[in-house]
């Protein structure tokens, strides 16, 4: 608790600190490569034959996903707080790579926790993190995936709290993490709003993003919350809700308290956390950031899901029509676009958050298709 208080104070202080904000925005521009483009996907739009589709190109941010927005912000904050070490959890490896990158940039010791299963699935990212000077520690307990890596990072943090900052990768966990991560990610929506006004001269009709913990979705949606725009979060439907092998917390979960926050949770009748499944490691998580149920209950965001097969189809479709291979996570958002755009008029505008690039998934997809590389 004292650590959370300390973090909360440091974070709110940094928001008022002109020097800190100046350094952050300088690095966003010169290091991350912001603003990322808002790209009109002409051939994808024509193929679907409905609404105009714009892609917010977070895949073009340094390290290949939106994760760097938050990791860099928190790394700067950790340095400012006088911590000498940062730790993080990672599932697919994107947040681990982003944290290792942020730590290398500001000069902090870095340790990343990753489940044994995920280390096997994402061997390339494990090597990338090590290359960046991070120690990658295997988590061989529980389901050996993201939630267990978070448990282990939290255990490390309680043990080394005096010297260490925990860079949580999504809008989850105890306060102030959900607010802080949203704040660092909200740059996505702020840029998109300006960009769409510049190109279309008006706001979009739809915003669509995938939702694991929910940071890229909140990042895009936050600047538009008061605009009355239809916003859709897409969860991982895995092999289908009825099979039980999915990570759709709204469709298949109920209210619970997990890893320091109260939100929707996939759990059994006794309050134990259920295993999840998704083709995409970044969405393969039993709970969801607590602001999502809040915004859903207020009627501001709707949630749906896309299955593994639908995401894989969208992954290939965007590659073929646009020459852009999306991360499997982002492919879930695109799958919803595929379902929705053809039913809309050509005057309507959709912005979809292309939260990451798909290079990391190429081997995995080949394996699923039975292709030997």
């Amino acid at each position, binding site marked *: 608790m*004292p650590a959370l208080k300390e973090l909360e104070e440091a974070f709110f202080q940094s928001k008022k600190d002109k020097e800190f904000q100046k350094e952050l925005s300088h690095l966003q521009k010169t290091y991350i490569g912001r603003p990322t483009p808002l790209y009109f996907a002409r051939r994808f739009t024509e193929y679907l034959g409905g609404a105009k589709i714009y892609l917010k190109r977070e895949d073009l941010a340094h390290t290949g996903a939106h994760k760097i927005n938050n990791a860099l912000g928190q790394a700067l904050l950790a340095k400012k707080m006088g911590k000498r070490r940062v730790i993080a959890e990672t599932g697919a490896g994107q947040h681990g790579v982003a944290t290792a990158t942020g730590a290398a940039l500001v000069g902090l010791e870095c340790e990343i926790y990753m489940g044994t299963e995920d280390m096997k699935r994402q061997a390339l990212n494990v090597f990338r993190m090590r290359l960046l000077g991070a120690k990658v520690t295997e988590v061989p*307990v529980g389901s050996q995936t993201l939630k267990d890596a978070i448990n282990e990072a939290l255990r490390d943090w*309680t043990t080394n709290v*005096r010297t260490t900052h925990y860079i949580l990768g999504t809008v989850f966990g105890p306060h102030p993490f959900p607010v802080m991560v949203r704040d660092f990610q909200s740059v996505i929506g702020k840029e998109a709003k300006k960009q769409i006004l510049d190109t279309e001269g008006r706001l979009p009709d739809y915003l669509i993003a995938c939702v694991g913990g929910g940071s890229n979705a909140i990042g895009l949606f936050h600047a538009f919350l008061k605009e009355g725009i239809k916003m859709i979060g897409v969860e991982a439907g895995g092999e289908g809700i009825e099979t039980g092998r999915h990570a759709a917390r709204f469709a298949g979960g109920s209210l619970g*308290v997990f890893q*320091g926050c109260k939100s929707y949770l996939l759990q059994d009748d006794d309050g*134990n956390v259920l295993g999840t499944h998704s083709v995409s490691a970044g969405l393969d998580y039993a709970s969801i950031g607590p602001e999502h149920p809040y915004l859903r209950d207020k009627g501001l965001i709707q949630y749906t899901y896309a299955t593994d097969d639908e995401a894989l189809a969208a992954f290939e479709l965007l590659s073929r029509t646009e020459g852009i291979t999306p991360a499997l996570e982002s492919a879930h958002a695109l799958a919803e676009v595929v379902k929705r755009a053809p039913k809309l008029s050509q005057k309507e505008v959709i912005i979809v958050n292309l939260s990451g690039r798909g290079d990391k998934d190429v081997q995995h997809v080949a394996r699923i298709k039975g292709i030997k590389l």
Partner: protein
Amino acid sequence: MISRIRETFKELKKKGKKAFIPYFMAGDPSLESTKDIVQMIEECGADIVELGVPFTDPLADGPTIQRASERALNAGVTLKKVIAFVKNLRQNTQIPVVLMTYYNPVFKYGEEHFVRDAKDAGVDGVIIPDLPPDEAGSLIRSSRKTSLDTVFLLAPTSTPERIKKVAKASRGFIYYVSVTGITGSRLLLDGSIETLVSEIRKYTDKPIAVGFGVSTPEEASAVSKVSDGVIVGSAIVKRLHESPDDLKRYIISLREAIQ
């Protein structure tokens, strides 16, 4: 109504003695075996039993108790079954029982139902390591109605403000976590426990039991000298799993060390 836990600490204090509080994971490896263990440790002179409730994501626990938790889950043990187990246990023993459970199973059970069923079954207190007193208002209110003791935790990093809050919310005893970290961490006997326990005593006269990291009789003895009770968990769970035949001798050595 004074609880069995408070009664126990009161009696010990009169005699100038300290509480020995062994921890076990309920249902590791089966609930039948846990019943035998409770009987054995009571015979060996334990004052209070802390019973772990298995959970899929035991955040505050080190590898030893994580594995015990997995074994108990595999044996099908749930919070509901642990409560029924205590009810059954009450036919043979009146030793105070404190449950250590994570919050989500309690939340799912329903706080009021949990408090009522636990109390009816003969559970005396509850420790929920991932529920700080700040978030425990409704649980505390339900517990006070039935006099189920709520035990909260303090750590070496706790501020005076925190100590006051935890002391106020705790009933039965205050659990002082002797290390920053998880169960089964290494204990440092450098006088810091004594300093912090006396810091806590400035704000409260409730009993203070110390746990996390106590493993040898020597450590137990040192800790008992500066507190009102000693909790030993991981070291017992480890022996029970790896060399159950030595367990009784070890329990006796701890009991003799804590005086």
